[in-house]
């Protein structure tokens, strides 16, 4: 009898937890008082531990790279000699100049895209498991961060705020995110638009609306401004193009610009409460 009762409790608990997983899928609109209370101990401690471990890692890396740098310096000196000679012989033709000018404009466009309200935050901890690229930052509601605020680093897209506490926020990266990103391929003469349809193993898969788009590896991808992400933020680079004849739209694989492993600081583009609630309802 006791054994049956115990089994019943286990089954009910598992079902309750499964419901909780389903409910919290997509992020909760607010965290509990207990979570906020403990975050005042947890977040500053994580900040200190992360700073110490970052510092130690950098010092160890510096030491191990001394010998590597010595070899590289020699190789670079040799390469420099050859390049100087080649440089004199080379002249840029008109097409190349045009390409460079266009690229310069595009890069300025990304760099000059300043956001009015933003918060700079430190990455204090990373996801404890191996399945997600989530991380925690030391800015929350008190600093003006809201759920769905967009997170960028060095003018490139990182992701969005998933859950917010008083003094911390969980950030989910674009490679973990199910929300669609509308994008544009930076091209010299034509505008190709598309959307991210899925993510897998740290890469993004996108569809291009133009069936005959002339694409090549290395093309840069930026946001179009449709959806929650602002216009003109660098997403990544095309690393492969799939021209399947059975499929009408071209599919591209995109490598994100941001290396999520080495993120230390991020910029959170703040939104107001109404925007946050509106996005929440529309999702």
């Amino acid at each position, binding site marked *: 009898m006791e054994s049956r009762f115990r089994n019943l409790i286990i089954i009910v608990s598992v079902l309750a937890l499964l419901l909780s*997983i389903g409910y919290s899928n997509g992020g909760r609109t607010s965290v509990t008082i207990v979570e906020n209370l403990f975050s005042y101990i*947890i977040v500053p401690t994580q900040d200190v531990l992360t700073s110490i471990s970052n510092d130690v890692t950098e010092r160890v890396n510096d030491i191990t790279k001394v010998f590597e740098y010595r070899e590289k310096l020699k190789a670079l000196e040799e390469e420099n000699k050859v390049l100087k000679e080649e440089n004199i012989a080379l002249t840029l033709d008109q097409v190349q100049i045009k390409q460079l000018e266009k690229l310069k404009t595009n890069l300025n466009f990304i760099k000059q895209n300043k956001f009015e309200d933003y918060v700079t935050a430190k990455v*204090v901890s990373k996801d*404890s498991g191996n399945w997600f690229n*989530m991380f925690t930052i030391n800015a929350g509601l008190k600093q003006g961060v809201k759920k769905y605020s967009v997170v960028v680093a060095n003018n490139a897209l990182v992701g969005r705020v998933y859950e917010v506490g008083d003094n*911390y926020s969980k950030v989910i990266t674009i490679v973990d995110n199910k929300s669609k990103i509308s994008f544009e391929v930076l091209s010299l003469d034509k505008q190709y638009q598309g959307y991210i349809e899925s993510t897998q193993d740290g890469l993004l898969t996108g569809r291009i609306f133009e069936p005959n788009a002339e694409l090549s590896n290395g093309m840069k991808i930026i946001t179009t401004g449709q959806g929650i992400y602002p216009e003109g933020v660098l997403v990544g680079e095309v690393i492969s193009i799939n021209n399947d004849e059975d499929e009408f739209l071209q599919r591209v694989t995109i490598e994100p610009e941001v290396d999520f492993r080495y993120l230390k600081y991020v910029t959170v583009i703040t939104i107001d409460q109404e925007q946050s609630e509106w996005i929440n309802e529309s999702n």
Partner: protein
Amino acid sequence: MKAIRIFLLSLLVFLLQSTIVQKISVYEIIPNLNIIILVLLAIYYDDKTIISYALMSGLIQDFYSSPYIGSNIMLYSVISLLLIRFESVFNKTNIISPVFLIALGTSLYNIIFFTILKVLNLNFSIYRLFDILIIELSLNVIFGIVLFKLTQNYLLDR
């Protein structure tokens, strides 16, 4: 073990796992200290301590580091129930015991997690599961053996 000690241990392990342990990754895959601690508790402590630690550590991890509330509580609880069933047949001084239990716990954790992600319609490949299983299992076993050897005398004399 007293409740306050279990709570402090869970907190300490979470703090280490989310910060310092991130730096000892292999191909971006890190060991899971919680599974190692669960196994050590299963070998040396009573059932109540194992279950309490599983609930506490799962709760902290879900609150501060997971996209889903309940996933880690459920996974660590399931692993702890299984460990309770198995630990009685193992020798407390034999190194094979923690190695087998860690391998069992790690495999179970990742296979169930992968299943949950598939149910939630998230796009993770089976190859990712194999990568995580192989590397995380190896790391957990190495760290588990080190921790087992370091704590063995203290915990046996307790």
